[in-house]
């Protein structure tokens, strides 16, 4: 993986938002034009998705395309349904009592909500990292990484397991910090390390898509930087979707950005606009987006 090529413009983040918002310094290696839908494996097409909590419609009428080998950021005010939408992409939404989804999420030509689709299998293809790091408290660091495989009673030889632990931890940039205490408890790590452990745990299952819900919001700037760098590396292998409240972060790491908004409490959230990150932050089509990214939201 080429680190230097994907270095984020971290220190430029302090420039005032209005004109600082700019395209990520990294030119996305592929696809070249972030806007053009690419017919690559693992492209996600969402068609007319309505998401409900019981009687309450939380998200309405979302259609979008998410390109593979890229980072897609979802931004928007609190409560507009970003997390809800994200969770509907690996069928985690329906874990909540009374929650259901109407519409289509198509990956590789298969509708995740089509008949005969097993949600458990979907979640192996579409991994997820949560806002708060949540390593399993009863397991060691190594076991946490292997959790996805082990909990599915996959029998693995010791050497295969050790190799998977190492590649996953290396993939999450955590290997050097924990290689001497793989048998220690996962909860003994710092918050940032725990979050990277959770990322290692997610990629150990070898998903095609990685969903991240505010993965840095509980972390300090250094850990945040580490994870942002990680995302830029991971996008070479995975299709990454990230929810964030940090617009500099969205600007730094993402290729495309979707803006969600909500008209008022009790109303469903909607996708207002989705475009290349550069465009969203410099010259969005919608006034609402402009107001939000320039901080004139209210």
């Amino acid at each position, binding site marked *: 993986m080429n680190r230097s090529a994907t270095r984020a413009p971290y220190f430029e983040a302090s420039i005032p938002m209005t004109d600082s918002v700019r395209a990520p310094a990294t030119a996305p290696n592929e696809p070249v034009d972030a806007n053009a839908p690419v017919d690559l494996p693992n492209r996600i097409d969402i068609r007319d998705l309505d998401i409900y909590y019981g009687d309450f419609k939380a998200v309405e009428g979302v259609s979008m395309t998410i390109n593979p080998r890229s980072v897609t950021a979802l931004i928007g005010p609190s409560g507009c349904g970003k997390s809800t939408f994200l969770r509907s992409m690996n069928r985690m939404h329906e874990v909540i009592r009374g929650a259901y989804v109407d519409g289509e999420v198509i990956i590789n030509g298969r509708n995740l909500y089509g008949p005969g689709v097993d949600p*458990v299998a979907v979640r192996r293809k579409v*991994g997820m990292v949560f806002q708060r790091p949540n390593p399993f408290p009863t397991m060691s660091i190594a076991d946490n990484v292997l959790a996805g495989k082990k909990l599915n009673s996959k029998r693995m030889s010791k050497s295969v397991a050790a190799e998977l632990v190492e590649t996953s931890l290396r993939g999450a940039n955590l290997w050097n910090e924990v290689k001497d205490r793989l048998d220690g408890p996962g*909860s003994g790590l710092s918050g940032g390390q725990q979050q990277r452990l959770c990322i290692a745990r997610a990629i150990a299952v070898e998903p095609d898509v990685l969903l991240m819900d505010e993965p840095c919001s509980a972390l300090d700037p250094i850990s945040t930087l580490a994870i942002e760098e990680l995302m830029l590396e991971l996008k070479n292998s995975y299709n990454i979707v990230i929810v964030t409240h940090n617009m500099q972060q969205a600007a730094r790491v993402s290729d495309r950005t979707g803006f969600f908004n909500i008209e008022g409490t009790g109303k469903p959230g909607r996708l207002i606009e989705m475009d290349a990150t550069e465009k969203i932050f410099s010259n969005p089509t919608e006034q609402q987006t402009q107001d939000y990214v320039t901080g004139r939201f209210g």
Partner: protein
Amino acid sequence: MSLTDIPPRPLESDERSNSDDAITSGSLAGAPMLGIFAGAVVIGALSWLPFGGVNWARWVIVTLLAYVIGTLIISRVVESPRQATDRFATAVMSSAFLLVMLPLVSVVWTVVERGANRFDWTFYSETMRGVIGEGGGGYHAIVGTLIVTSLTALFAIPFGLFTAIYLVEYANGSRFSKAVTALVDVMTGIPSIVAGLFAYALFVLIDGPGHRSGLAGAVALTLLMTPVVVRTSEEMLRLVPNELREASFALGVPRWRTITKVVLPTAIAGILTGIVLAVARVIGETAPLLVTVGITANLNKNPLSGRMATLPVFSYNSYKFPTLPPEASIDRAWTAALTLVLIVMVLFVTARILSSILKPKGLR
């Protein structure tokens, strides 16, 4: 533990400055209160000294009375009325606590003292077969208690644990799950003798009137133990953060493996503690066994048929219907009671150790 020297919690750190007019008016804190208590102890001693031998009960009760009244009067004189009421309340609370210690210490002391008479090898190795008068033991009752309690645990633990898993992991607020919750409450309140009658009635239907067996006893005790297991397990499962379940689901782990590999291991300390305490509760149950298992002088290892001796019933029976000379019988009753108390204590300590060993370190 000193009654008067209770370190103030941070919250009340300013209470001592709390007199009506000045913040430095006369204060009884510290040594003076100790003095009042010491005086009360002397007054308490005077209540039995003139009559000879130590009367502990009278000593404690008179001391506490003198302490409470003395505190009220002296604080009223030296400090303010408000302060006096506060000190009086404090004295009443701590006295109530010591007062409760009185019967409880007495119970434990009596059991140990009387139980010691037959706390010998014979008691733990012989049955009552052919024994009239002295000698004999409770071996058959210990074996019976172990068999009945093990059977009970065998029924009640899976029954209770799976019910708790249903309520926490699967129930969706349906009528059915609400009914189960309500009925677990009802079950918690079933009087033990009624549980015994139910098991008897059940086995009478199968086997005809007069049925007695260890199995019937275990069924009765299962009725009593299950709701306790459900309640504690349910509570512990609810303490497992939802994030862990979601993390597991998000890895594509099916629900049942999430429960067995993530949720249960996280909650296991609390669940095992609860189960051990539930066993401690049913192991001393007497009434349901009296009507379902009965009592016998012989060793019966077959729970499927025939009367069986159990420790609590053996104790009760030896006391209530002593053979001649009655002392021998009554001594056996006390030693059986002592054995029961010891088992309960061991179970309690086990529960403590289990919960500290198994508790996952990183759980918030």
